[in-house]
């Protein structure tokens, strides 16, 4: 069978996350940061900066990116890629909003 299934897990509601901020989802040993941007879009990245594993969930969110609080790497919320001249990426997870509920996909696609 070759069916691609995505397992969507409800992790909270939009209001749980401060605008331009993030909340964490604990998944086994991994922590996933779920971000809410200025215009209420949501993104999910592993809470680990590709540089030195800094907690991205605690960085400043701006224009579709988050700046890691440890050494100021700027990471794209959509792709997890480091911006500018820095190279590296953090894992990103599909996340969607359904009627105000945040659904996170954790099965590897």
């Amino acid at each position: 069978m070759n069916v691609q299934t995505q397992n969507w897990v409800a992790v909270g509601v939009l209001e749980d996350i401060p605008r331009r901020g993030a909340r964490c989802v604990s998944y086994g040993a991994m922590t996933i940061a779920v971000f809410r941007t200025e215009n209420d879009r949501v993104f999910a990245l592993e809470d680990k900066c590709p540089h030195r594993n800094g907690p991205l969930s605690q960085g400043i969110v701006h224009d579709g990116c988050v700046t890691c609080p440890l050494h100021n790497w700027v990471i794209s919320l959509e792709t997890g890629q480091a911006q500018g001249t820095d190279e590296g990426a953090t894992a990103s997870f599909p996340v969607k909003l359904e009627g105000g509920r945040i659904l996170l996909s954790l099965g590897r696609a």
Partner: protein
Amino acid sequence: MQKLVIIGAGMASGRLLEHLFELDPDAFDVTLFNAEPRGNYNRIMLSPVLSGEKSYEEIITHDEDWYARNNVACRFGEHVTKIDRERKVVVGENGEVPYDKLVIATGSAPFIIPVEGRNLPGVVTYRDLDDTNAMIEASGKPGAKAVVIGGGLLGLEAAAGLRLRGMDVSVIHLSGHLMERQLDEAAGYLLKRDLERRGIKVHCNSSTAAILGDDRVEGVLLEDDTAFQADLVVMAVGIRPETRLAVDAGLEVARGVSITPQMQTLNDPDVYAVGECVDLDGMLFGLVAPLYDQAKVLAENLLGGEATFVPKDLATKLKVTGIDLYSAGDFSAEDREEIVLRDAAAAVYKRLVLKDNRLIGAVMYGDTADGAWFFDLVKNGADISEMRETLIFGQAYQGGTPLDPMAAVAALPDDAEICGCNGVCKGKIVNAITEKGLTGLDDVRAHTKASASCGACTGLVEQLMSLTLGDAFSPAAVQPMCGCTDLGHDDVRRLILAKELKSIDAVMQELEWKTSCGCAKCRPALNYYLVCDWPDEYADDYQSRFINERVHANVQKDGTYSVVPRMWGGVTSSKELRAIADVVDKFNIPTVKCTGGQRIDMLGIRKEDLPAVWADLGEAGFVSGHAYAKGLRTVKTCVGNDWCRFGTQDSTGLGIRLEKFMWGSWTPAKVKLAVSGCPRNCAEATCKDVGVICVDSGFEIHFAGAAGLEIKGTEVLCQVRTEDEALEYIVALTQMYREQARYLERIYKWAKRIGYDEVRRQIVDDPERRRHFFDRFVFSQKFAQVDPWSERVSGKDKHEFRPMAIVPKEAAE
């Protein structure tokens, strides 16, 4: 196919045909008349042909093949005698040609000054190849002499060319200096000098009275009775549109053939005109660029288009090998400003003409490297206010390149003229600055007059001051806050107050931020400025603070946190120590360490434990030590007269009082204080942001020290008698710093920037102002002096410390 007849095969008509055939090769059956017995060639390059530097063959633009390929019926060497508009026929010497559309491109005829002898053989004008060949022929006789009447572009090119050919050449010019339409006297002088160095004799202010000779020219006589021998006289005194055919045909003719901006004649829709023969609302066109524009417009309109010709700015170059001269734009405007650069040693002269912050004209002699760039600025009408100071140095000195504008000024020789209005040169300004110890622009103005009149050279003068005084002189240079804006910190602070902007969104909207959310650099800065300026109205935007300030603990490299409770003045008690020890044990905190700020740090606390840790510490009476904040950190003290035999005052008491008064306040950057009980300075007060050295007679207040990446001893603010005064001065100083500094700027940097004397002036010399600073700080503390830990313990921002969800691994698979 319609019939198109064109009278004149000059450069405009050649371009017209090119465009026409490009757009629609089959639209017209073209007949081309030309009085000259040849097709179109680049008339502008006749001067190099005259001099021998180019051959005629090289400058032909359309040869026989080209006309044949495009099916143009060529009637070269045949004059048109009449245009019969009723029958729509053009009558040439050799026959008639009917037309559906007619284009008159008869060009210009040269002015002939109405003096006796003007028709003698040997007197030539300078318009076409025949004239050029006549001149070349005349130069063939060794030792022949030429007199050129007219010292404009054309006359000078003729003179140089004839000289190269081997003739003895003199130029006679009516005005006071050469090329007076493009150049001023200074540049005209340089040009005259260069021509004379080629052996060409130049006579300005000279008016021709008559041309002498019997069967052929022998000489030229001036009004003042001077006479020159001449085997050849070239008349290059100007041109006027050739309009005879149009006049005879009953078309409207002003100074030239009158046309609409669509290139049509005014009273016959089937007849058009293009090139030097036209007159558009009184404007004539003698340079090639507008002619090319006209040709393009006309080609479109002949095919039914509605294009419009818009005259634009012009550039001219003098084509004499070895002379670099370039001029562009307009020099005649009223209320214009000028920037002039003269370098006598390099024989360089540049003059820029500005009006309303736009470049409208430029002349360059000796260095034309930036000619095209200046011309673009003229054409675009760009606002050059930002680059005013370095504009005259050309493209290489504008932003974006690593070149330092100071290098240009440094390289100027001492006799380079800086202030054109008052004739002040670099050396004079520099000497005045050094000899008289001038430190400000006003000083320089007063002592040298430089920049005292029109002010256009102010930027240059400021650069000279920078060059001479170095760091001691700081011209206003605005560094933008970040990539989201062009405004500097000071501008933004000023505007936040002036425009009463009370939220980050308002700031970004009103000040036209380039991004929608700012960035990690500007958001925290804006948040601070708003907190400082509107303490009662602005709600701190926590998402614009760094994590440390959000969770009130210091994030460590492994994601754990360190917690530092306040220890007022570095003084503790057994109860406090016991509370700390209990917390350490209860939460298995790995490391306990004393800090340089005279308090205790607990490191390795997990984020989710923070509220509980604080709860326990809070119960013991601790509040946050703000070890992470851009705010008051610590107030170090030494023992003082409580215990120490040298203590002059109660340094510990003062320190505690200061810390209790000032804690919780946000500041542009961290603030560290210290109070030493005597000049032995055991609390190291003289390297702090603000420090106090107690003395017998009172308290010596210090400020602007640093002991981090940079080490700097403090400056003395003043000495006060009482503790109350000490508090007032220190708080006022801190508030002044809060209101005026840039985010992330430590006190020592801010004070140096605005000047230590300025700080003293506002805090020490101005009691009323000091009081106001003090009051504003107090007001701000009403909102700021809140223990963040107790807030969080009670549930504020609890989302920071708990995950939103915990997903067991099985649920997802």
